[in-house]
């Protein structure tokens, strides 16, 4: 060390016996809310002895190898992990310093459907088919398997599974990264309903009840949705005594704030998908084949007395149409102006929701050539004797919209559509031989695809930007 100039703001750290020298600014960049930020704060350094700041040495009783990685992260903003530092090790140390969020942010970039890489596969150990996968806001996930939900943190370590008296789970939703909402089927003797759990500990924290005429009644919730701005929880409900409709609860108070009874001609209690559309302040409720013979999609405005602000149904579509198209899944696009739907031939169609009133069968189906790449594969796979016919049937295509891109699961792949016209730009094909994708979910800048056959969840991430 032959630097005669003692730089101002230099800090010497002794971490587990190894010396590190850095600047106060580098450590402060971690933020006041971290261990390093607090340690250097003036409140802890106004000691009486007037030793020059750069003479002082801070001792930290932690592992130096891992500290080196984290210091590098603070210096450069990027994460470089040597092979001998395991994820678990790194995370434990990062949690100690309060740098876990910084580590996660450096691990993967903002989700871009065209740059996704398969980062990991989480093997399933549960018996029975996975029914749904949900992404947590922080990059964790949960998988619903029959009567239980398996919960994983963002390092993909499994936490305690969650169950509601082991009643079959219809849907799950994250209210925030530590709160998981479950919708489980009602059974004689009780057990079903909607309940919130701690995603961290798996403890039941609150049950959301439905009252009709001030009497609490059992019900089977179908799909869940959450409006984070008003804190409202929505669930499609089938009451045991035929009270069909959409239940609304306040997530903080935990109390029921409304129940929209199904008006005649509208299928709401059966809805398999609910989605809160922020721009319009409405809730999309979609009831689709094969649960019912016809598909019914509506937008519900709870500020309006009437409730149903817009609706579409394929009942009464002209019989002359060449093919019998069933809408199997629907998603509201980010712009809040249209819905995308998909049928059993993997055709995409669009519905304009800006036009008020009832849209009479006005789906603009896209030419099938757009999906050709994805479909061809599927047909090829279907060509051999109908080996897995039974399982095949349960995997209906699913849709998701994120960041102006449209994602559609078809067979064992996910197609990504981009641009204003949603042209096919990428196809994601994950674990080999894992079977068709029965559900996928996007959240925390990750995409999780649940494969039907071997219960494996593929984790897709956008890698950090290249160095140059």
């Amino acid at each position, binding site marked *: 060390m032959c630097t005669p100039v003692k730089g101002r703001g230099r800090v010497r750290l002794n971490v587990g016996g190894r010396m590190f020298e850095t600047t106060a600014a580098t450590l402060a960049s971690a933020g006041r809310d971290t261990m390093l930020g607090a*340690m250097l704060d003036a409140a802890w350094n106004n000691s009486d002895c007037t030793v020059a700041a750069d003479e002082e040495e801070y001792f930290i009783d932690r592992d130096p190898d891992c500290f080196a990685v984290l210091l590098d992260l603070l210096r450069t903003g990027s994460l470089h992990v040597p092979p001998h530092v395991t994820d678990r090790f790194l995370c434990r140390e990062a949690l*100690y310093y309060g740098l876990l969020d910084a580590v996660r942010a450096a691990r993967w970039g903002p989700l871009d459907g065209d740059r996704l890489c398969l980062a990991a596969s989480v093997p399933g150990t549960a018996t029975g088919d996975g029914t749904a996968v949900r992404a947590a806001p922080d990059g964790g996930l949960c998988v619903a398997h029959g009567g239980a939900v398996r919960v994983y943190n963002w390092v993909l370590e499994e936490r305690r599974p969650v169950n509601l008296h082991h009643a079959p789970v219809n849907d799950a939703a994250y209210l925030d990264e530590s709160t998981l909402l479950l919708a489980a089927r009602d059974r004689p003797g009780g057990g079903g309903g909607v309940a919130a759990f701690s995603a961290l500990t798996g403890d039941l924290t609150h049950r959301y009840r439905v009252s009709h005429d001030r009497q609490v009644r059992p019900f089977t919730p179908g799909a869940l949705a959450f409006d984070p701005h008003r804190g409202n929880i929505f669930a499609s409900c089938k009451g045991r005594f035929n009270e069909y409709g959409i239940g609304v609860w306040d997530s903080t108070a935990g109390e029921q704030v409304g129940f929209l009874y199904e008006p005649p001609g509208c299928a709401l209690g059966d809805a398999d998908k609910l989605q809160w559309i922020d721009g319009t302040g409405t809730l999309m409720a979609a009831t689709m084949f094969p649960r019912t013979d016809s598909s019914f999609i509506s937008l519900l405005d709870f500020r309006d007395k009437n409730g149903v602000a817009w609706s579409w149904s394929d009942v009464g579509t002209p019989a002359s149409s060449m093919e019998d198209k069933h809408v199997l899944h629907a998603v509201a696009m980010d712009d809040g102006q249209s819905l995308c739907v998909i049928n059993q031939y993997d055709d995409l169609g669009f519905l304009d929701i800006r036009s008020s009133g009832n849209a009479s069968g006005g789906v603009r189906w896209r030419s099938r050539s757009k999906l050709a790449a994805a479909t061809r594969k599927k047909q090829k796979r279907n060509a051999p004797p109908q080996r897995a016919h039974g399982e095949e049937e349960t995997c209906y295509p699913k849709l998701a919209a994120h960041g102006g891109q449209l994602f559609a699961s078809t067979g064992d792949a996910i197609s990504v559509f981009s641009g204003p016209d949603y042209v096919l730009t990428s196809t994601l094909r994950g674990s080999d031989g894992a079977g068709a994708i029965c559900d996928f979910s996007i959240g925390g800048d990750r995409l999780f695809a649940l494969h039907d056959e071997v219960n494996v969840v593929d984790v897709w991430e956008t890698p950090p930007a290249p160095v140059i």
Partner: protein
Amino acid sequence: MSGGGPPRKRNFKIDVFKHRVELDPKYAERTWKVLEHAIHEIYNHNASGLSFEELYRSAYNMVLHKYGEKLYDGLESTMTWRLKEISRSIEAAQGGLFLEELNTKWMEHNKALQMIRDILMYMDRTYVPQSRRTPVHELGLNLWRDHIIHSAMIHSRLLDTLLDLIHRERMGEMINRGLMRSITKMLMDLGAAVYQDDFETPFLEVSASFYSGESQEFIECCDCGDYLKKSERRLNEEMERVSHYLDAATEAKITSVVEKEMIANHMHRLVHMENSGLVNMLIDDKYDDLARMYNLFRRVSDGLSSIRDVMTSYLRETGKQLVTDPERLKDPVEFVQRLLNEKDKHDKIINVAFGNDKTFQNALNSSFEYFINLNTRSPEFISLYVDDKLRKGLKGAAEEDVEVILDKVMMLFRYLQEKDVFEKYYKQHLAKRLLSGKTVSDDAERSMIVKLKTECGYQFTSKLEGMFTDMKTSQDTMIDFYAKKSEELGDGPTLDVHILTTGSWPTQPCPPCNLPHEILTICDKFRSYYLGTHNGRRLTWQTNMGTADIKATFGKSQKHELNVSTYQMCVLMLFNSTDGLTYKDIEQYTEIPALDLKRCLQSLACVKGKNVLRKEPMSKDISEDDTFYFNDKFTSKLVKVKIGTVVAQKESEPEKQETRQRVEEDRKPQIEAAIVRIMKSRRVLDHNSIVAEVTKQLQARFLPNPVVIKKRIESLIEREFLERDKADRKLYRYLA
């Protein structure tokens, strides 16, 4: 201590390592003692001896070894104990020092809380969310709230102190605003509910009773202007108070308290206050007071409407007096000038004091519309006012000033319901101006026509414009006539003919009088010239409208040039051949209608200084037995003598009736046309709807009388334009 930080830290660390045994039951207790000691040291301002890393690690270890609950509970009870201590020391503070002490302790608690949170950061990140407990910082605030703010000895004392300080400030004392700011900020930091329940709500209640009392006191002893000044000052003080040391959200609440207590509750009394209320402000043009009233009343509901209502009824009352006062009706020009002055005055008030509020402008307009139309002579007077201005009033005035005056007149014109009456009068007055060459400025005349045209449309002014065209063509015709016929004419009298298109001018058919021979000759020459150049036309002499310049020689060979009307000229020419004539003779020779003749003789014989004729017997009025003589002794200082015609500038009662009748007559075809237009498009309509539609269509010109409309409908039914529906008698059908 003298060894400095690092060595001590190392010693301690080694200590911990030695005894670090996973299942040692005393481990947790010992670690907690270290942390508890640290928390006390932090509160004792003795933190410099503490090692952050070591404390952080201790807390980390406790959480890691599942002693999170013990750590959290320990923190809660230690902090509670400290806060109870603090509470005692605050309670002990005497009088004025109470707030100071509270503030100091609050600052210290905040700092300590930050440091404690630093140490327990790991617990805050992991144990707290997992066990769903209150985060450390929030816990610290909650405990402060429960043990300090809500403690029995402090709670009411704090509130009373704050309210007392504010009261003292209202009474003019200086208080420590910085300290107030810190204390209210503390309440806000503890949560909106604390600030509202423990300070804001009582503050608003106390303020309401304060201002209720004060406003009562003010209203008893102040006049309206002073009261408003005081209210305004109070309002500003409260807003300033909020900006200095209260939450911004309080502003709306406290101002609404002041507004309610000081303004809304006394609104009626203020507006109607004897000798100083709104009406007096309006009369005395108190712009500042009016503006203040406007700005204060605007803040309360119904405030502006109460001002507006009083102003409107005041305007209507004074306006009604103005237009119905018989004294004022004597001079039409003065009458209109007063209206304009009144309008200017209130325009200025609305502009200066009421921020050009549209609703006030509307109230002003509707008031004027109301009272101007109370007097049926308003259209005539307005036209006379314009006549006066265009005759002489505008002489020498700059073009812009002319425009300003005309614009103001147009404003009054807009208020008129009977615009067609105005048109009638305007036509008459314009004709007189044009024919007598009295108009001052052609530009001003035309500008007025343009304004009427933009206001009422092409139809309204087409005849007026026709009059101007006639004047121009007449001029050209006369030049041409003299150019072509000058040698034929010799040196007889000069003739200047205005050729008036029938219909454009307000002419009444009148029997032509007998013109003197000399005039008749040249008239016939002109007639043959004119009919020679224009085919298929008819010329009728309007002898009642012409003028003549004649030369007369009196007694001592005094020569005068007399400017007289055509009738007067005819009479005077008779005296060329004789000295005396009886009334009957004159009437017989000239065939001038009796009424006109009497007037013209009156002006020739009875006006002092212009009596070129002598009447026997001498009297003011002309009777049919009178005899007239050429007045040889006529003298005048002037060479040119203008003999006016005795004619009222204002219309006489019968003339007024006549004009009114003509107007009514003119309205009939307009109403009929409107009915037919409406029925043609609607085919079937009931009576009331027709009346409503007709009124709507015609209101730009006049307000049709429903009775007249009914008569017109009946007339149209008679002429088979319409028929009554056979089933429903109320319905009319259009017959194509």
